[in-house]
């Protein structure tokens, strides 16, 4: 009798404890991550905001930061760092005005269409106005620095890397994925080969491409000689150097697009395609109406991931060209790194914050407008 009572008590205690721990489960599962992210993301973020607003000095017994307000940012936009960050602006010509005018018109149409749709919310309107202003300013910068007589700053160069790079990576990745999901003997071999570049450390890839692009000792020397380019190092030409870096970037990151798109294509149900073939659709029609809508959501996630990662490009320009000729191939991360190396931590922080601002700006546009719209349209 006694033992039974004890047992009963014991099990009740057990239920109380287990239900209490169960109620805690929600916190137990998520807290480590939240704390880790707070510890190493929020704190450094705020601290580096302070760094970007301060001047760094070596002081006796260490170092000190003196608060200087927005001086570092002012320097970045209008001061001595201005041409480095924003680039050298060519004088406006009628043609630049026309191009810029077209962009502004497109943005105006976009805003007007939103206003005329009738479902205007405060947040939506604010977001769209910010977007219009941001894109307008960026296109003003791009139009004037890309023009003859202008010179790209690190901000425009990074944008070129990101958008040109992602465009080619996606197109090539999709094309190769479409080819390897066909029932071809040996497709598994190709898949393994195509994955290789992703596995190599980016620094290694950068050195490898420096070897390959060498015009006097690299493997393509005979080709350069045949073209009469032996004295003309294409890595010393601004756009040549940028192209070389883009080739390296595309070489390394196409596999990432490729493998995820292969997974997406293979998970597609085959019935709709069979039905369409019976109805006499050709392969382009099948792709356009069945395959493309099916892989669109994955593609959006994929492009977003690459968009965020591509802004951080640093190894390739650092190793392949040292940012040169001049500052032509420097990316924003590399720009911040140079300032850090020169112990100008404040300027470095300011560049890093502008980079963060750009990444957030484009990710927000992507998540809120492009991704939502394309996925909803299905």
């Amino acid at each position, binding site marked *: 009798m006694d033992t039974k009572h004890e047992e009963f008590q014991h099990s009740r205690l057990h239920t109380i404890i287990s239900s209490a721990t*169960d109620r805690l*489960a*929600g916190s137990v*599962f*998520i807290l*480590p*991550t939240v704390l*880790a*992210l707070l510890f*190493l*993301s*929020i704190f*450094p973020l*705020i*601290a*580096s905001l*302070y760094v970007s607003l301060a001047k760094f000095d070596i002081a006796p017994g260490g170092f000190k930061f003196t608060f200087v307000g927005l001086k570092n940012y002012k320097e970045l936009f209008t001061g001595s760092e201005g041409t480095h960050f924003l680039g050298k602006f060519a004088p406006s010509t009628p043609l630049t005005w026309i191009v810029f005018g077209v962009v502004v018109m497109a943005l105006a149409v976009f805003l007007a269409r939103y206003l005329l749709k009738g479902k205007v919310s405060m947040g939506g309107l604010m977001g769209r106005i910010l977007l219009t202003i941001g894109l307008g300013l960026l296109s003003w910068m791009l139009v004037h620095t890309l023009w003859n007589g202008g010179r790209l700053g690190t901000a425009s160069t990074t944008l070129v890397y990101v958008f040109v790079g992602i465009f080619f990576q996606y197109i*090539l990745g999709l094309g*190769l994925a479409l*080819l390897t*999901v*066909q*029932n*071809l003997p040996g497709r598994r071999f190709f898949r393994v*080969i*195509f994955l*290789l*570049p*992703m*596995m190599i*450390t980016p*620094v*290694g890839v950068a*050195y*490898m491409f420096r*070897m*390959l692009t060498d015009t006097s000792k690299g*493997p393509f020397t005979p080709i350069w000689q045949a073209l009469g380019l032996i004295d003309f190092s294409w890595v010393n030409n601004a756009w040549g150097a940028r192209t070389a870096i883009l080739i390296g970037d595309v070489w390394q990151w196409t596999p990432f697009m490729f*493998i995820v798109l292969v*997974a*997406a294509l293979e*998970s597609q149900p085959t019935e709709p*395609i*069979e039905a369409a*073939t019976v109805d006499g659709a050709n392969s382009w029609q099948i792709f356009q109406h069945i395959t493309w809508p099916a892989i669109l*959501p*994955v593609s959006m996630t994929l492009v977003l991931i690459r968009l*965020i*990662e591509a*802004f*951080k490009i*640093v*190894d390739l320009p650092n*190793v392949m060209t040292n940012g040169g000729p001049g500052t032509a191939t420097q990316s924003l991360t590399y720009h911040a*790194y140079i300032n*850090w190396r020169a112990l100008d931590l404040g300027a470095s922080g300011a560049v890093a*914050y502008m*980079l*963060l601002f750009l990444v957030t700006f484009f*990710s927000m546009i992507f998540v809120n407008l492009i991704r939502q719209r394309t996925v909803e349209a299905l």
Partner: protein
Amino acid sequence: MKRWFQSKTINTPSPVGALLSYLVLGFWALLILFPLYWLVITSFKISSQVAEGPFYIPFVDYQPSLDAWKYILVGDLSKDTLRNFTNTAIVAPVSALLALVFGTTAAYALVRFEYRPRVGAILTFIGCVLLSIFTISKGVPWQIALAVSAVVFFLLLQTIGRRFQRALGNNDIAFWMISQRMLPPIAVVIPIYILFQKLHLLDTYIALIITYVTSNLPIVIWLMRDYLNTIPIELEECAAIDGASRYRIFSSIVLPLAIPGLVATFLFVLVFTWNEYLLALFLSSAKIQTLPLTIAAQNATRGPQWWNMSVLILIMIVPVIVIAIVLERYITRGLLIGAVKG
């Protein structure tokens, strides 16, 4: 004639289509393999053979030598190589595994639990972090500053924080976590460097592992959240009715079902941590250097030592490829289910 252009089944291309596909695939394979081939043959060259111009085929164009391999593996650099290889082999898998553990539990929590953090609490928290940073920068010892901020935080939370009842949801938390990946490492590396310096953790495994785990958590959450979403909730409900605790459900039902996703995610994160350069450059000085730093260090005062670099790059790729081939059948399966959701 016509059968050359006709496909037998939907997925099998016509003979002409197959030929064209092979041409394109072969061309791209060549583009991938040629740089790697160049790495391999460069690793068997000596400096004069690199300097005198391009040589393509060993034994025909030039006499291959094992000098670089010897230098890296048994010669002068062997101690550095071994130490840095060990460092990489410890830091990368451990960080990837820890990121996987924390990231997966968090992803599971975001899929199955409901959280409603209040805006007021978040704002007071940010305010207190700002306060502590401000006081520390004014020269107050960090222990005191943190303690004071914590006290202020709890006081404010009990009084003001309660007034703002507006709350965020799971999607907002997920977006916040994922957006941590948007931080360029260069933006946070200086404070992290100072932080670890103050804690006397610079040039230790702990510093590198903590940094890698946090910087890769967003990727794990991103991939695993999509994956866990596809696991039917009915199984877990049945287990809950049978009296299993939350932890037991997670460990004996969810985890086994998620293995393909876990493996694919682990591989991705492993590749990222194995190859990471910028953070390692800042956080390690001598003892805890990783292999990417050894590669960069071969660009010495005498100019880049291409042959040594090639050897090191090849040494670095091999383990990753072996792991990737062993786990290959999981990769597509793992990405597959996660990918459906998008």
